[in-house]
């Protein structure tokens, strides 16, 4: 069934250098294995690696916003990562890895990377909804993709209602929890970031790997 999911796309990207951050606050093992089901090699970014030697930098993340920002500050990666992304380096962010792209989070006190000018909020900030948002939920994309896909979410904080207009955004994905709209996915030329966990979203999650491959090809 995995082979069916990966499709017949030729794997032209054998020389792709993919690096994952090991923040000590992520489900590293799961994300690594998910990526390896499609891509040949995935490395853990070492202390001495330069980010710009990677074709794709991956930030998984569980835990708290401040804790992940602290990791970036302590390891002297905060500014380097911001510069890398702003210079067009390709970044894949999952869950907290999605959230740190914004200016700040109601969960913590630290500043995020500020790539997008919005604030991460507690999901029940404006509407009384069941917390956390946990389970598979349908996600619709604004480019009219197949709207019947559901992905696994597990979070208390996120980007709600709408994202500030930004000309670099090429694709957006939304989900709804108890009437609260949540931004589930953002794609630009060099950023692909998702609030849901593709590595835990069964076949829908595996097919995200195909989307990533196409996106990497559009360099």
């Amino acid at each position, binding site marked *: *069934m*995995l082979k*069916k*999911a990966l499709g017949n796309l030729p794997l032209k990207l054998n020389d792709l250098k993919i690096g994952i951050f090991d923040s*000590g*606050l*992520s*489900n*590293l*093992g*799961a*994300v690594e*294995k*998910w990526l*390896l*089901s499609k891509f040949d090699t995935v490395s853990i970014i070492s202390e001495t690696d330069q980010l710009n030697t990677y074709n794709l930098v991956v930030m998984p993340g*569980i*835990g*708290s916003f401040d*804790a992940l920002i602290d990791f970036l500050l302590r390891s002297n990666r905060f500014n380097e990562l911001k510069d890398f992304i702003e210079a067009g380096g390709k970044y894949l962010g999952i869950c907290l890895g999605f959230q740190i792209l914004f200016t700040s989070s109601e*969960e913590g006190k630290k500043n995020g990377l500020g790539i997008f000018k919005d604030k991460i909020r507690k999901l029940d900030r404006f509407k*009384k909804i*069941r*917390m*956390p*948002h*946990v*389970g*598979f*939920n*349908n996600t619709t994309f604004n480019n009219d993709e197949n709207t*019947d*896909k*559901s992905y*696994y*979410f*597990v*979070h*208390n904080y996120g980007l709600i209602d709408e994202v500030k207009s930004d000309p670099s955004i090429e694709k957006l994905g939304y989900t*709804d*929890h*108890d009437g609260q709209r949540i931004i589930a996915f953002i794609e630009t030329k060099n950023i692909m970031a998702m609030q849901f*966990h593709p*590595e*835990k*979203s*069964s*076949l*829908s*999650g*595996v*097919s995200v790997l195909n989307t990533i491959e196409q996106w990497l090809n559009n360099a």
Partner: protein
Amino acid sequence: MVKQRIIFSLFFSEGYYYLSRNFTLQKVGELSWLIDKFKFHQISEYIDELVIYDVSRNREKGFNLNLLQDVAHLQSFVFLPITVGGGISSTTEIEKCFREGVDKIIFSSQMFDKPELVKETIDKYGSQAVICQIDYKLINSNRFSFIYNGQKQHLSLKNHFEEILNFDVGEIILNSIDRDGTGFGFDIEVLKFLDLGNKTLIISGGAGKPDHFCEALNYSEVNAAATGDLFNFLGNGFLRVRQELIKKGMNVRKLDIDI
């Protein structure tokens, strides 16, 4: 709207998986047996989450980290949330679990004998990463909770539940020891006795056929239903559960057939 979930629970001890009936364990086989008999290479379409409990009854040993080797193996082809629990007693064990790819941690007796560990885990990883399980049984028609793998009677279920609300846990598993492994169906009656508030509830204990899942998930306050029954859901058992729920128009993930 977030979908209700089908959860498969596994009982692990010292490298083997067990059947449980009223909390009495019977050894069944190793992970390879499960992978074969339950079609684990397709199972991520049938179930929504896997829970693996360390049920070895030696509390001094803490959580058996060998369980994580099985988690690591499963992660390479089961792309679903995997939750673990059973005697977790230290931050080191928890760090190793999350690093391996675990989605959530289950605490049970620790809510009472290690509350600082519970609070610390919630602070560090977020409430969504922590589940509290309550095991209970009927004593003279009243429900009482039991801790330490069902060995010690604790509080009335109602009081136990209220104590839990002092912690900001993400989800609560209500597990019926009386129904466990019997195939008699979930203890739906329990819903009448508790004020669930806004808490995310997982019901567990007693499932024997797809209809039991339909009964349980018919209640919108039940977010997920879990079974550890190794014989009633063999082969295509979980596929049949999902098909039955879809047929009844219930709020579950559809089968992803045209990938």
